């Protein structure tokens, strides 16, 4: 037997209040967005403050009740919190923050050359899932840890989900969930918007709330200040 370390993308739900019903509500909202997708999905709860005094057994129960599986708890935990969590036989997960080193750019104004200090080359696999053809009612396409391109319409009752961005070369009449694991900078692009639901990192907008001027038009859906924002797809 060998011990290997693998990387996973996990659903993380933040909790910043002692009120556990808020957690249930949050999970319920998530599940209702795409019931098939989230049923029995593993979830990590991130405790946002060292001062929170939670009932961890109840927390676990509430996660289960919403149809998710609690993998463990993470956060900057106090010793007391850690002890209480361990007492309920719940795993404590340490998140290794991925540090993305930005390229440092130095401009030498004297001779106007640009020097770029490159970080050591890390082979990053940039994947995109491409689906050709219509996505029909009842079908679901999920792009795990990458962007999703749909070359066709997404019908009412269909779901397209990506951990990254979603590009639809066609009409969006069903649901589209970008940043499904929490990426807030994810966007949805489509050529004609009449979605049942659009969501970025768990924040969503239903068809009833779509501003009429955007319906049926080319659109970019993004998240700004925790709000779904629609803007025109520019036609150059």
């Amino acid at each position, binding site marked *: 037997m060998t011990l290997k370390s693998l990387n996973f993308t996990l659903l993380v739900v933040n909790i910043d209040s002692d009120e556990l019903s808020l957690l249930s509500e949050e999970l319920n909202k998530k599940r209702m967005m795409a019931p098939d997708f989230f049923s029995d999905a593993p979830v990590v709860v991130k405790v946002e403050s060292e001062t929170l005094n939670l009932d961890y057994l109840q927390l676990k129960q509430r996660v289960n009740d919403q149809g998710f599986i609690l993998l463990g708890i993470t956060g900057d935990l106090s010793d007391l919190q850690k002890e209480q969590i361990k007492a309920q036989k719940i795993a404590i997960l340490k998140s290794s923050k991925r540090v993305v080193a930005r390229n440092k750019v130095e401009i030498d104004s004297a001779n106007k050359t640009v020097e770029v200090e490159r970080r050591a080359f890390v082979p990053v696999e940039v994947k995109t899932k491409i689906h050709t053809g*219509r996505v*029909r*009612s*009842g*079908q679901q396409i999920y792009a795990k840890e990458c962007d999703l391109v749909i070359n066709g*319409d997404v*019908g*009412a*009752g*269909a779901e397209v989900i990506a951990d990254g961005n979603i590009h639809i070369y066609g009409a969006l*009449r069903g649901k589209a969930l970008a940043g499904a694991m929490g990426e807030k900078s994810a966007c949805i692009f489509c050529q004609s918007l009449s979605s049942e639901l659009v969501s970025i990192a768990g924040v969503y907008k239903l068809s009833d709330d779509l501003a009429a001027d955007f319906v049926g038009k080319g659109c970019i859906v993004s998240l700004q200040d925790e709000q779904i924002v629609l803007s025109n797809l520019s036609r150059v």
Partner: protein
Amino acid sequence: MAKVIVVTSGKGGVGKTTSSAAIGCGLAMSGAKTVIIDFDIGLRNLDLIMGCERRVVYDLINVINGEANLQQALVKDKRISTLFILPASQTRDKEALTKVGVEKVIADLKADGFEYIICDSPAGIEQGAMMALYYADEAIVTTNPEVSSVRDSDRITGMLSSKSHRAELQLSPIRVHLLITRYCPERVEKEEMLSIEDIDDLLGIELLGVIPESQDVLNASNLGEPVILNQDCDAGKAYQDAVDRLLGIDREFRFVTYRKKGFLSRIFGG
């Protein structure tokens, strides 16, 4: 090569059985040996629409369970010598429909020289509907010009491309045709109904035929005479056009535009 064609829709009451009967008749009249199988276990009515209900002895489930052989269960049409019906069971539960059972029936029908095997699907997306579409080579997705029917057709079309034998074995996909039934150009004009263009936009399926809403269809059902046998009515003609297209003959679409009855046509009864 024998062809298995499923007539399906997702939604109930849109005209699957009416269309199975009409199209099955039309194909048989072209001289091809044709059988129509009723997959609507427990709610059989194909035999009524075909007018052969009094001659049903055995049914599809009897054949699958080995209680009768195909020859005993097939009901021969009295009007068209190349047409046969395989009725559904009125009493058994639909769990009796199995892939193995259906596969054997279809193989036996092919061995018996049948060229067209039409599967009249029940509504829904449960076992019965799945079995009706599983071995299909072609599908006639039947839709009424309204949103919920179109939505269900979209759903079932997705299943044709993912839950069928052809999909599972990654063979060439099922050829899907769209049949719009109960179309009423006048109501489309008034925007009370989806238009052919709207439906095409939502489904993107090749159009096989447009059958007008017509009292003649109801009359035909009551008589047990598939409406295609009445070539004096619009619905009968529209079904014949659809059959011709299925056989590869080009036909213009008729009965799809609304003409207000003008002065002259009122006088001459146009």
